[in-house]
């Protein structure tokens, strides 16, 4: 009887591992193909090879140069940094307010906020575009349409008079258009609010008696013990901003403003895609994500120390 059940257990385990291995292969294959293709010659990509005969290390340098990746990379870093900064400030403050501060209409506002999570991006993209073009409400800024008139056909800046600050500007081709829409999202606020809500109220009471107000309590007590959710928001925010493609494509018309994901599109030419360079470019764009992922991964595992509360 014992032998029989042991056999069943071994078979069960074997089937389980088999399913997991198949799943892992399915998940890993595109990734493997991307890296493999990034080392191929153009001919090999056309012949749909799996492994390059001689790794073409030069693909990376060529991709970087040919697509003007330096500019795109710099743009992406700026856009992502500014977006994340805004995202963190807004999400932390809003999450804290929803968790810990009483104000009229709090639950209704929070419900509306949550409802926005259900709306797909493709539905809001057109209204958002009209918004940043200044077609719905007047936007403050230097009108980028005026700036466009100052750029020559080859992208060189012509000597021309810039318009002054106005309240009827279009934000197309501006940093605002690329960052502000990413500076708050319902998911981040929701995630932080849920975590902040678990903080024992006595911790705030103790801080109040010690002389702390909401802001000091938030920054000196709550945030240091909220590393895990903050890293989660940071990671998701980073991936979202770094990987965004459709939105930057819509709100930019000039390469000098475009981020790296849009830059990848340069390898799709009228003569067909240069797949080997496209994949080399894709690997380059992936590196920062991997770095951020591994940094935040470590923070996740450190866990949350709330052991100062109760025995």
């Amino acid at each position: 009887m014992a032998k029989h059940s042991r056999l069943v257990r071994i078979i069960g385990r074997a089937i389980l591992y088999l399913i997991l291995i198949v799943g892992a292969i399915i998940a890993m294959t595109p990734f493997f193909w991307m890296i493999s293709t990034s080392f191929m010659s153009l001919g090999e990509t056309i012949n749909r090879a799996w492994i390059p005969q001689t790794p073409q290390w030069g693909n990376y340098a060529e991709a970087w140069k040919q697509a003007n990746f330096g500019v795109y990379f710099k743009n992406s870093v700026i856009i992502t940094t500014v977006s994340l900064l805004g995202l963190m400030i807004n999400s932390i403050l809003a999450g804290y307010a929803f968790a810990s501060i009483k104000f009229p209409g709090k639950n209704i506002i929070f419900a509306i906020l949550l409802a926005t999570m259900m709306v797909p991006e493709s539905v809001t993209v057109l209204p958002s575009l009209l918004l940043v073009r200044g077609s719905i409400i007047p936007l403050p800024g230097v009108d980028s349409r005026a700036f466009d008139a100052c750029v020559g056909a080859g992208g060189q800046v012509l000597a021309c008079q810039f318009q002054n600050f106005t309240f009827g500007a279009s934000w197309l081709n501006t940093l605002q258009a690329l960052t502000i829409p990413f500076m708050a999202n319902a998911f981040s606020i929701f995630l932080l609010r849920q975590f902040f809500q678990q903080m024992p109220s006595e911790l705030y009471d103790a801080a109040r008696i010690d002389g702390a107000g909401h802001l000091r309590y938030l920054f000196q007590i709550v945030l240091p013990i909220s590393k895990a959710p903050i890293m989660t928001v940071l990671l998701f925010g980073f991936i979202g901003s770094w990987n965004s493609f459709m939105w930057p494509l819509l709100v930019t018309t000039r390469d000098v403003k475009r981020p790296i994901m849009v830059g990848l599109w340069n390898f799709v030419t009228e003569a067909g895609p240069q797949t080997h360079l496209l994949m080399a470019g894709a690997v380059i764009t992936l590196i920062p994500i991997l770095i951020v992922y591994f940094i935040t991964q470590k923070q996740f595992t450190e866990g949350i120390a709330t052991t100062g509360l109760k025995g």
Partner: protein
Amino acid sequence: MASVTYKHVWKRFGEVIALRDLNIEIEDKEFLVLVGPSGCGKTTALRCLAGLEEVSEGEVLIGDMVVNDVAPKDRDIAMVFQSYALYPHMSVFDNMAFGLKLRKLPKADIKQRVEEAARILGIEKLLERKPRELSGGQRQRVAVGRAIVREPKVFLFDEPLSNLDAKLRVQMRTEISRLHHRLATTFIYVTHDQVEAMTMATRIAVLNYGVLQQLDTPQELYDRPANKFVAGFIGSPAMNFFNAKLERYNGSLAVVTDHFTLPVPEDRLATYAQYEGKDVIFGIRPEDIYNPQFTPPGITVAPVKIKVDVTEMMGNEIFVYWVYGKDEYVARVDPRTRYQIGEEVEVVFNMNNMQLFDLSVDAENPPAIR
């Protein structure tokens, strides 16, 4: 060091009334314990004093100053919480120093105060540790230390021992009492544990449903409870209550119940005379019931027949339970007593310590007849 006064304090949470017209005057250097069952308003009263809750009506004074609109940090109080509420990411030193840093005290002063408090509490060696590296008792000490360094006028304790095991609780109880003598400051202490209240307090305020039931010394509360609630709450096991009538008996007065008739001692006759013929509650503490073999001299005893339901050997005493109808009663008798379960025995009540409560005033919580 300061007195504390609650003047006609009301606290409402929407429809719920947590405090009803609370009036307490706490003297300087007093150790006042607020005690009562869960939801009686004791913690709310403490939080109103700390400034963590606003009072709905009335005034709270620290010293001569009304503090209703004063921020918690400016009230010159310190509070020890039930969950300790230590900042988990800070070392013990930083936990204790946090409030002082916010008050912008010089670093040398902060260091000196923290080290002094740590020395008093015997936690000098733990200053670099994080709260998670401490035992429950050590965390408790850190929480007390955080209060001490502020050198407040009033110390507030919100059930600080309820997360500790029984042995440590007894130890910390004596430590807090010692601390009170050493610091000679006003202590206000909230607990639901009447043993803590009795052992530590100079005076106890008993609350129920947001109403102050009695404010007195532990001995007075025990000997002369103001009403049935206080009588039942103070003392463990709780006082036994019997529905009774005061009737004329052999030219004197007697307490008559369905199960026994007991003559009233002579010194109480004058007090109880006007209640003749009235329904009352008769109360007797378990420790005022004796096995007749081991009755101390000099008390007025009255015999009662009981049928033993359960006995519990405690070592230094025996709890004997019996039942009348649906109600259970208990006696604490001499440990040499040998009663068998089911046995019908005679016990005696010490009538000198009997209590009577006047049902005609309040049927729910009748006041004691004095």
